[in-house]
């Protein structure tokens, strides 16, 4: 959620009312924004010998792009408090009757296909609203524009350049201009190097760096206005004295392009000599049929059903009352003449977040006050509670292990590749583990395929604990599974580890016996069992043999030779290896920095489902 800092005194002036911190907090809470901090009583930085005035830091929900600046917050709260009506934004053609034009060249399709624009005439900047204008562009770039990848904004002093304008895409070496606040001219190529290390701009270079052509806005004299989405030219930069502002907006996302345009002009046209007037621009873009006049600030006509709104909110309001509630949320709405169940709603150009009547319904609820809505019974139907069977099974094993004197641990599911394989002397056959593409640290490379690494790490971090340490975990591991939609499956495992001055091999063995006894599985002596098959699948098998489990010595590098066994289970005449237990090999202990012997047990529980 973006946080916007506004001057507290200025905001209260704009609201026409002083608030206590708590009072303002309550207003924010009701409206659905959040007062993060009131800096009145904190130490504030001193800039140019003047202490920064007290700020309110307000968190704005991610869908309210229209509140990313002082102007928007003040306006929306005033409308909510019924102090101001919704402004009537108007497009005004210049006296000449001729609109400025931006002609789009087809090459822009290769890099950044869409452009829009607008002109704000006779604007009067003060330091405050100028700063707010710049800051809004920043916030829009960061949020809605996804760090300029989707949309980028350029603003220019129209009196320094002369239309008609063109939006072109040129080879980087053919673009040459003095970037904003720089002293010498550079080519597009040179800028890529020049801004490489720039804290602010460096991160945007990737958006166009490797493209054959870079987008550029030019005036009629081929003066470069901007090279979006990187930088504007110094030549056309706006200052406090700028009276006429030309806004260029370029994008890869057609919808967000116009949303950004609408927000900017809606917020800053109030400073024009004639407030809330915008001079439109003609975009000529024949090659992709995008020729049009921009911005389109006409409200979107929508309808909403009275019974839907009332039902969702638990209200029985009249269409008229619903319409009046909607005014507080900056809509203009009227009951339909033809259908008593319909209200006609004008969605202002600033409310691009309104997609469906459910958004209108929510705004009715907010205007009414969430906490004022009548309470009703939660739901009428009775439903039947039901546990997930694998969780029920897992809980049985957890209880039995704890009753047997073992402590439950909860390590992480993600681990490093080494911890899961090399450190356990296990090989990755490439078809087992799910691998992450973008972990921030080497701790998270794969989804574990065994519970052992987490338990051994837990013991490593608890070496100060008295021995023996007896820990267990019942949780999921994941394996690759090409046949499934998600190409992966979880498997519920039970594992335990014993750490002491002696190995505890027979203790771990005893835990296995105990848990399997509780799962109604009889122990079979080895002679009763059949020779083990290495496949982890049930196999149809000899009749006359009872269900149960047996163990068979194994020689696997995870374990100390002669002290490890596979656990075999036969259920319903099918048999499978379900896990193994043994004394860990000393080289494994060394990798996990364990000084004493460790015996472990790990089995797949899902066979008992």
């Amino acid at each position: 959620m973006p946080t916007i800092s506004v001057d507290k005194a200025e905001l209260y002036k704009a609201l026409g009312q002083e608030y206590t911190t708590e009072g303002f907090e309550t207003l924010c809470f009701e409206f659905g924004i959040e007062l993060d901090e009131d800096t009145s009583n904190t130490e504030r930085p001193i800039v140019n010998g003047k202490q920064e005035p007290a700020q309110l830091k307000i968190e704005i929900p991610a869908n309210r792009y229209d509140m990313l600046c002082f102007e928007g917050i003040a306006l929306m709260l005033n409308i909510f408090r019924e102090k101001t009506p919704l402004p009537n934004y108007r497009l005004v053609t210049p006296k000449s009757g001729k609109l400025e034009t931006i002609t789009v060249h087809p090459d822009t399709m290769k890099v950044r296909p869409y452009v829009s624009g607008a002109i704000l005439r006779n604007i009067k900047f003060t330091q405050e609203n100028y700063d707010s204008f710049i800051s809004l562009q920043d916030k829009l770039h960061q949020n809605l524009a996804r760090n300029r990848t989707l949309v980028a904004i350029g603003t220019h002093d129209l009196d320094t350049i002369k239309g008609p304008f063109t939006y072109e895409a040129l080879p980087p070496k053919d673009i040459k201009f003095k970037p904003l606040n720089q002293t010498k001219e550079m080519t597009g190529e040179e800028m890529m190097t020049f801004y490489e290390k720039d804290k602010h701009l460096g991160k945007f270079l990737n958006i166009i760096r490797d493209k054959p052509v870079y987008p550029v806005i030019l005036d009629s004299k081929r003066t470069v206005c901007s090279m979006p989405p990187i930088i504007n030219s110094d030549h056309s930069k706006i200052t406090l004295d700028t009276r006429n502002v030309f806004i260029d907006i370029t994008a890869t996302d057609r919808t967000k392009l116009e949303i950004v345009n609408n927000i900017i002009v809606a917020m800053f046209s109030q400073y024009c000599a004639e407030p809330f007037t915008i001079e439109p621009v003609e975009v000529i873009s024949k090659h992709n049929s995008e020729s049009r006049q921009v911005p389109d600030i006409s409200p979107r006509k929508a309808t909403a059903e009275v019974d839907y709104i009332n039902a969702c909110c638990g209200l029985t309001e009249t269409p008229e009352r619903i319409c009046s509630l909607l005014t507080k949320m900056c809509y203009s709405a009227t009951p339909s003449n033809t259908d008593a169940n319909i209200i006609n709603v004008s969605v202002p150009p600033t409310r691009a977040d309104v997609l469906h009547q459910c958004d209108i319904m929510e705004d009715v609820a907010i205007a009414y006050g969430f906490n004022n809505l009548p309470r009703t019974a939660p739901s009428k139907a009775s439903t039947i509670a039901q546990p997930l069977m694998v969780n029920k099974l897992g809980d049985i094993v957890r209880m039995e292990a704890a009753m047997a004197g073992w402590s439950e641990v909860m390590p992480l599911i993600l681990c490093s590749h080494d911890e899961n394989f090399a450190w356990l002397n296990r090989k990755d056959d490439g078809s087992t583990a799910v691998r992450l593409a973008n972990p921030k640290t080497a701790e998270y490379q794969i989804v574990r395929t065994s519970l052992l690494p987490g338990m051994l790490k837990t013991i490593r971090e608890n070496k100060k604990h008295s021995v023996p340490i007896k820990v267990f975990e019942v949780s999921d591991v994941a394996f690759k599974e090409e046949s499934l939609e998600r190409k992966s499956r979880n498997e519920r495992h039970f594992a335990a580890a014993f750490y002491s001055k002696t190995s505890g091999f027979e203790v771990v063995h005893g835990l296995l016996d105990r848990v399997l006894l509780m799962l109604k599985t009889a122990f079979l002596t080895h002679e009763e069992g059949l020779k083990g098959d290495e496949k982890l699948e049930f196999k149809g098998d000899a009749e006359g043999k009872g269900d149960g489990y047996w163990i068979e010595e194994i020689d696997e590098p995870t374990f100390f030779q002669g002290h490890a066994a596979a656990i075999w289970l036969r259920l319903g005449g099918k048999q499978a290896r379900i896990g193994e237990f043994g004394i860990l090999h000393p080289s494994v202990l060394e990798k996990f920095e364990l000084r004493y012997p460790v015996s472990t047990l790990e089995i797949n529980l899902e066979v008992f489902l």
Partner: protein
Amino acid sequence: MANVQNGSTGDLPSEILQALSQKDTILSTETFPSIKSTDLKGALDRLASRSMIAYETIDREEPVLEAEALQIAENGSHEARVWEALSKKMEGLTVAELEAAVGDKSVVKVGQGKAFKLKWIEKGKDGRLVKLADSIDDTAREHLQVIQKTKTYPDPKVITDLKKRKLLKMQKVISFKIQKGPKFALEIAKEETDLTADMLASGAWKTATFKPYNFKSLGADQNAGALHPLNKVRHEFRQIFFEMGFEEMPTNKYVETGFWNFDALFVPQQHPARDLQDTFYISDPKTADKPHAEDANDKGEYESYWKNVQEVHQKGKYGSIGYRYPWAEDESLRLVLRTHTTAISTAMLHKLALKKGPDGRPPPARYFSIDRVFRNESVDATHLAEFHQVEGVIADYGLSLGGLMEFMEIFFHKMGIEDLRFKPAYNPYTEPSMEIFSFHKGLNKLVEIGNSGMFRPEMLEAMGLPKDMRVFGWGLSLERPTMIKYKVNNIRELLGHKVDLSFIERNPAVRLEKT
């Protein structure tokens, strides 16, 4: 045991009993002056625990003579020794002769100066030293002798003065005042520590003396097993869900597709939550299949669902204008580690759309899950790349926001949380969205305890759920309420391999309703 000295028989307890048999009260300083107090205490404790004696400990400080003072007490002060030597020779002595007579150069050196000052001696005509006073009082020696004997001196000034002269130091002395106890006897009876089967068989318990039990210490360690605190809280939540008729969802799927985790939830493909910064993507296996049935019983219409989702994002549908962007199949088929269990709720609701209740419509349903979710977060005190999400879903006809709030009151009341406040919020897949707050008395402010809302029609109608079936969803993390409840400040002390095993072993049983 006691290292008894001074001709003791080696059985200090017996000696103490013997001494007490002759005298009601004895002082250890008098009766056992040379036995170390630690040894004495051992013996006394043994007798006291059997109530054979009672004793009091007396702590006091007493003056102890330094090495030089011991010499003075025995032989006299330096000046007195000089005077004495001279008083034996009327004609006096040379310094060398004096040194020979006293037998200690340093004594002579210090002593003659003082003796001159006290006018006890003088220099004779031939330079020899001769006595001047006829008799002297060697007060220093007398004082020290008194102190040596009585460990004190009537005039405290004397002790202060001698301390200044570094002849005395104060030493802490522990001694004991010992009296007979209720079970006083000369013989120490053999004490039994426990009642045994043998004693019952032989009847020895009737006559045996039992050692008193130490009621001040803890009992024997149980070497008990323990469940993890987070799982104990999970159990409580699960119980609450069961009490309210919820069915547990199959969340045993860590890997999800972009489709189920985001697109089906009407989260647009450019949404920041889908950034590499926030979501773990999977590099191997590479891509998912399009949604399809995975068992014979699944009669889901996956192809049309996929198209509906695409359409509602790209062009809008079901009365929504949509996000209006080119929706990419590839993005939807990327594999991710689920960022929320809502991916599973979505699949459950999609299945619900196919079910037919008695009236031919999908029946009302209540689902819940408590399971691990993954975020590509930078790890700090409140963030881990993994945590548990508690999630509930209620699908029914004619649900209203007032019902959702009422349900939340009941749900949180079961955890001892009252007086909820609801704040409008934003979430791409719920509308309205409500953050749930509760006033926390300890922190003296409203704290957010969960998120809730009604799933968007764009999400539900794409699945084929009827327009008038509305669905509540809410979620909270398992870790946060646990951390608040048990005052754990760092999530790494609660989840993961860095958790202290003693914390797991000693964490009390969880009763969420008790505040």
